[in-house]
């Protein structure tokens, strides 16, 4: 059974929800930012929230925590890592994912259900989806406008690193309507929408569970 580690920082908000989602498909353990020991988990989720208050720049301070150093190692060894919202921002700041997340074009926080398209099913977090499948998952963020320099953006598209795209207009002004990307090796995935908030009937959509189920299929110790 896949063991997920959910990494918690001061200011993280969606950690319990992420852990609960993991535990619907596997085992889960909460990891503390100050502890570099990842306890031998099979997959890492860096959840959403406002680590260090999002002060200075979203994710800028959190990326330097001892646990993040271990996550970088874990990712370099091919371990599956999912960054959700603030987690996505942290992974970008840490250089595990390309690009940066800038303030929403409307300069306001937005919270609503969004449709996103799964563009590639060949990542540890989308292998239970079909390419082209639509997922209904909420977005809730102030800094979700994905940006990468033009050449890099082309490369991302060319390499199929754009894993999720908003259907219709991006709510935040992201380049190419990008909602989520992966690294070249495809083991690290980040997205702004919150799959952990779409895993139960209570949430009105269970589409988000597919991301966690995907990772649960990963044989332990990859």
């Amino acid at each position, binding site marked *: 059974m896949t063991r997920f580690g959910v990494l918690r920082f001061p200011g993280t908000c969606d950690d319990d929800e992420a852990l609960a989602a993991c535990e619907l498909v596997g085992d889960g353990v909460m990891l503390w930012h100050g502890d570099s020991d990842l306890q031998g988990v099979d997959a890492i989720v860096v959840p959403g929230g406002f680590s260090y208050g999002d002060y*200075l720049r979203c994710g800028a301070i959190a990326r330097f925590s001892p646990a993040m150093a271990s996550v970088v190692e874990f990712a370099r060894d091919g371990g599956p890592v999912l960054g959700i919202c603030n987690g996505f921002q942290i992974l970008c700041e840490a250089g595990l994912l390309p690009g940066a997340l800038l303030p929403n074009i409307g300069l306001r926080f937005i919270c609503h259900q969004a449709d996103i398209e799964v563009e590639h099913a060949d990542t540890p977090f989308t292998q239970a989806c079909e390419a082209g499948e639509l997922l209904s998952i909420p977005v809730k963020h102030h800094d979700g406008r994905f940006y990468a320099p033009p050449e890099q953006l082309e490369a991302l598209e060319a390499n199929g690193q754009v894993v999720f795209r908003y259907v219709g207009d991006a709510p935040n002004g992201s380049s190419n309507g990008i909602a989520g990307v992966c690294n070249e090796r495809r083991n690290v995935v980040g997205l702004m929408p919150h799959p952990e908030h779409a895993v139960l009937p209570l949430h009105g959509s269970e589409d988000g569970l597919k991301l966690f189920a995907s990772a649960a299929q990963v044989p332990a110790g990859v």
Partner: protein
Amino acid sequence: MRARILIRPKAGILDPQGIAVERALPALGFSGVANVHVGRLVELDVEDVSQLDAMCQKLLANPLVEDYEILEQSTHA
């Protein structure tokens, strides 16, 4: 004329960002840093520099909680 406006939290006003940065730096191996404050920078081309102060008062800064400083620069290319 290119102008720079530096906007910073008023002395005595809580500056959570400054505190967060000051706390973070030592962890990155930077020592001997103190008194960190984080504010905003506004840069603009303006024809009539005499308007700048009014702009800060009315829009760019929030005089209740922020101080501002206007730096003018040589005409902008």
